[in-house]
């Protein structure tokens, strides 16, 4: 390439980059771009899903092959556990009926269980700075933006951030852009605050804007407050590790150790209705 040709090329790139930069910085959304974006995303998600399936089955196969004894032992243990749980479940079922009957007698508002949908994690975000999961359920399965996502243990994992036709992305709880109202889950204290992600490896979030005289101490369990319409009340978030004075003593902030260990997560539940 001649030096003149190279100069022209550099100029063209500079102009394109400046235009693209302007689009990005002023947050200009061009409609056709969105169609293209969705098209590319929906084309690429099926291969990702297949690849994850192949990867998973290979890993499971090898693990099974080398740990037959362990698997057999575990199977026996789980069968025993299953039997005892079934017994427990039948007892709980009777309690449930009793509870429903008593609730009706007291004319309490009936607690409606959430409508959830299980989803498999098929990938992670391709950037170091964005904490996102890709799950295998999308708009075809009735997933919408902002739906809360919890782990199988019930703790909050994040919320739906982007919906494709057969897959969607979950913005994770420790992303700095993630915010959720939290409340201390103790009968004598109902201190509230805003739980925010901090982007660190220790999976610790910060709870801010707690009133200066709030009754909050180390070891308190923090759950979602349910003040906004985006999350149901009472999803466990984490435990208080440390409390500091914030805002020159006008408020408190707390370090929250999260319950969700997202790196090892394989399946999540999307709460569709609450």
């Amino acid at each position: 390439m001649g030096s003149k040709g190279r100069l022209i090329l550099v100029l063209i790139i500079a102009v394109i980059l400046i235009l693209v930069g302007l689009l990005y910085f002023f947050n200009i959304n061009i409609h056709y771009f969105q169609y293209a974006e969705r098209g590319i995303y929906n084309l690429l998600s099926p291969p990702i899903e297949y690849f994850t399936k192949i990867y998973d089955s290979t890993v499971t196969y090898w693990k099974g092959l080398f740990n037959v004894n362990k698997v057999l032992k575990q199977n026996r243990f789980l069968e025993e556990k299953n039997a005892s749980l079934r017994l427990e479940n039948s007892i709980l079922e009777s309690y449930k009926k009793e509870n429903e009957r008593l609730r009706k007698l007291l004319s309490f508002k009936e607690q409606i269980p959430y409508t959830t949908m299980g989803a498999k994690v098929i990938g992670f975000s391709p950037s170091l700075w964005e904490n996102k999961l890709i799950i295998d359920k999308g708009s075809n399965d009735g997933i919408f933006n902002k739906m809360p996502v919890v782990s199988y243990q019930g703790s909050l994992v994040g919320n739906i951030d982007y919906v494709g036709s057969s897959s969607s992305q979950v913005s994770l709880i420790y992303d700095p852009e993630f915010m959720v109202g939290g409340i201390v889950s103790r009968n004598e204290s109902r201190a509230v605050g805003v739980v925010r992600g901090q982007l660190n490896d220790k999976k610790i979030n910060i709870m801010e804007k707690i009133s200066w005289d709030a009754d909050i101490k180390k070891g308190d369990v923090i759950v979602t407050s349910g003040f906004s319409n985006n999350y149901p009340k009472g999803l466990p978030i984490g435990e208080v590790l440390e409390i500091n004075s914030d805002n020159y003593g006008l408020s408190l902030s707390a370090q929250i150790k999260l319950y969700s260990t997202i790196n090892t997560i394989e399946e999540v539940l999307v709460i569709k209705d609450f």
Partner: protein
Amino acid sequence: MNRNLIFTLILIAGLILQVTLFSFLTPWNIRPDFLLVIIVVISILEGPRTGLLVGFLGGLLQDVFLGGFISVNTIIKVPLGFLSGLLEGHFYKGNFLLPPSVAFSASIIYHFLTIFLTEHLMFNINYWTAFTKKILPVSIYNAVLSLLIYYLFYKTFYNGERYYEK
């Protein structure tokens, strides 16, 4: 087959591997930037024009997956691909020290530029921790990965020939 088409397919495969395999296999919790590695390696081998193209495509694919059409990654990866491409012709292609060092520096530049172009990162993170805990390990991982990828590409597209120009 047209070489640019092959590179496009490689980039798509790279994205799929990055969101799946390289997200599951994470030694010490580090996820490499596989697309950046591919872009750097192709640029070193093919020159600035192809570097520009793969930088644009790779950045775009990554941005589409992060839920924005053209965003930070496209803006940063285009010049990175172009600049790495400028090295083509100045180094002996059998020089296996070049790809790791370029990939290492490109990763560090890429991550710092990402921080400076993203508002919520720029004001919220601790730069020293981000550098030692995230940027440095990822850059080292990328450098190691680039050596492997460069070797594969060099053998496939150049049959291991040892010449300066294309």
